[in-house]
């Protein structure tokens, strides 16, 4: 059985509309492009405030970082009139935190531990 990644998309209203992508499964060399593709579709459909719920990620490799980088590049011009959108992370699992900490990148992402707090921060 190969790696699987499920991406559940929902919308919440904080100060602004926020699109939540809830990931469940593995984010590796096999599945990372699925995340990039899905996020790209959402951004092309007009969303510019994205929150990634990473609590259900059982495994993440550096390909996951590649996906997040690709998405962040798209977000830079995803807002109205090409302005910057926002991208934040919610509850990274141990597997996700391990990659961030090993690379020392945990300080470069906007990470939240509480959904309400995350939504209000947009």
């Amino acid at each position, binding site marked *: 059985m*190969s790696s699987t990644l499920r991406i559940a998309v929902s919308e919440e209203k904080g100060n602004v509309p926020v699109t939540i992508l809830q990931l469940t499964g593995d984010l*590796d060399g*096999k599945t990372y492009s699925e995340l990039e593709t899905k996020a790209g579709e959402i951004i092309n459909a007009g969303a510019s405030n994205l929150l990634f719920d990473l609590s259900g990620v059982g495994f993440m490799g550096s390909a996951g970082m590649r996906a997040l980088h690709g998405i962040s590049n798209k977000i830079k011009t995803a807002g109205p009139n090409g302005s910057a959108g926002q991208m934040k992370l919610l509850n990274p699992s141990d597997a996700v935190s391990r990659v961030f900490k090993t690379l020392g*990148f945990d300080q470069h992402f906007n990470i939240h531990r509480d959904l309400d707090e995350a939504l209000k921060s947009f």
Partner: protein
Amino acid sequence: MSQTRHLEIAADLDNLKQVRDFIEETTQSAGLNHERTGELLLAVDEAVTNIIMHGCPGGGCAIELEFRGNPDACTIRIRDNATLFDPTVMPAPNLDIPPLERDVPGGFGVYLFEHLVDQTSYRTTPDGRNELTLLKRIN
């Protein structure tokens, strides 16, 4: 007393999960704790992913993993017949550049596996294959 287990796979991204399952099963039986298992798992996945994506992008290669567990350490030996490449001599990425400002995404795989295990070594086998060995201490 040491234990040895083997896994052979085709160099295909579909087989990454099988590799990780193999590592989890073998390290659990060797007594490696949860955190160290996670680190070794990440290291092996990075190494195997690099072989598949960069060493054999067109497919048709084979990867052999050998696990050895003794009271002091777990050793994973990865042999493959992909393009000969020594990942231990790759330059480290510049981690001072924030990840979201790098021009090219990625490039962290080699850095990751070298910093997640206690020893890394590479050689070319007599039959012309790559052989990468990763060692993770039990304590």
